[in-house]
């Protein structure tokens, strides 16, 4: 986290949010004054060093804002007189999206489980099971011998029996209670009772129309700041409710040579820095699943063997109006 500012004809302020940063180094790559530095990404990812991934040299920064528009992950922001340049019409803009369609979402929560960045805000309300079952249950306490067969067999754990005297004066002080908020009227207690002391009716079949259909409601949305557009959520969503646009198109390959080979489990630097959880070490080699990769390039920088080859062919950064910015920013896709 840093924020630097300069007051002139305009008031310009550059702020950096480490929480959103993936360590891709794109900002460093595009900075025309070499004012940004990427820290040691692997030790930081492993928690060996606590520091921000990116740092700035305040005296050489010209507050142009190129880093902030190039950052696909909303980690840097330049404001001019209080307005974020990403909201100013003439500045480039990432046309990416990470959205959950609440009309389609069934609140299963699988996206929330797989998101590598904890970017999904998820909450759901399940119906009360008691509202979904109907029945009656009655225990004849004169007939009950407190054998506890019913309580031991009850799949819902709904029967509470007290059948051990606490003193010699307490011999007849037994009790049996059914917790109707747990009972599902399955009838196991009735069938197992050796004394026929339990009367139970499941009226589900008769009253089926009166029983509410379970309705699951909730809230689910993606916090776009920390989202890295990896697509784990949209790939796993069973109802196709999620749209993710990736910032880049292209490929990432492992190109080994004589002396330069992937050391797999010994190193796993790529896996540690990957913000997308897209890298796995399989049979001693790094394997990247491009379905989940956002082509940020953090692994390319982290690889000590320098054998990861990233080829971006297109990007969703549009509205680049300045010729010099166009040249620099198109360098990201090798054009």
């Amino acid at each position: 986290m840093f924020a630097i500012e300069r007051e002139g004809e305009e008031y310009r302020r550059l702020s950096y949010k480490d929480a959103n940063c993936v360590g891709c180094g794109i900002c460093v790559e595009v900075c025309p004054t070499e004012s940004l530095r990427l820290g040691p990404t692997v030790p930081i990812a492993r928690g060996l060093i606590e520091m921000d991934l990116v740092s700035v040299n305040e005296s050489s920064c010209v507050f142009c804002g190129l880093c902030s528009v190039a950052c696909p992950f909303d980690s840097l922001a330049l404001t001019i007189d209080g307005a974020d340049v990403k909201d100013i019409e003439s500045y480039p803009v990432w046309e990416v999206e990470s959205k959950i369609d609440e009309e389609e979402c069934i609140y299963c929560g699988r996206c929330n489980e797989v998101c590598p960045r904890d970017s999904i805000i998820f909450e759901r309300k399940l119906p009360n099971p008691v509202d979904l079952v109907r029945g009656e249950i009655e225990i004849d306490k004169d007939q009950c011998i407190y054998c506890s067969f019913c309580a031991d067999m009850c799949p819902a754990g709904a029967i509470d029996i007290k059948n051990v005297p606490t003193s010699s004066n307490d011999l007849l002080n037994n009790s049996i209670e059914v917790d109707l908020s747990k009972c599902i009227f399955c009838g196991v207690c009735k069938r197992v009772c050796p004394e026929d002391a339990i009367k139970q009716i499941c009226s589900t079949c008769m009253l089926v129309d009166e029983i509410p259909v379970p309705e699951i409601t909730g809230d689910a949305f993606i916090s776009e700041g920390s989202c890295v557009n990896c697509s784990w959520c949209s790939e796993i969503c069973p109802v196709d409710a999620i749209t993710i646009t990736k910032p880049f198109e292209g490929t990432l390959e492992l190109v080994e040579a004589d002396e330069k080979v992937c050391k797999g489990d010994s190193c796993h630097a790529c896996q540690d820095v990957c913000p997308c959880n897209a890298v796995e070490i399989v049979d001693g080699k790094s394997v990247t699943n491009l379905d989940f990769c956002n082509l940020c390039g953090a692994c390319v920088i982290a690889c000590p063997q320098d054998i990861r080859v990233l080829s971006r062919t297109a990007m969703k950064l549009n509205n680049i109006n300045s010729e010099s910015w166009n040249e620099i920013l198109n360098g990201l896709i090798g054009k």
Partner: protein
Amino acid sequence: MAVKIDSNLCGHIENCPVQGLCIKLCEQGAIIEKDGDVSIVPENCDDCDLCIQSCPNQAISKA
């Protein structure tokens, strides 16, 4: 092949910004602390070069 440490550049744990970052990074046990200093165990080295890349003093290189 392993790696070697230039003892003029090395922070010798005490003056290393991370008190022996290379030792902490190497999961092969090829860099260990010995008598308060950094020591290489060549037979454990897998030549992954992670230590070379990460040394804040650029003290590590190929042997």
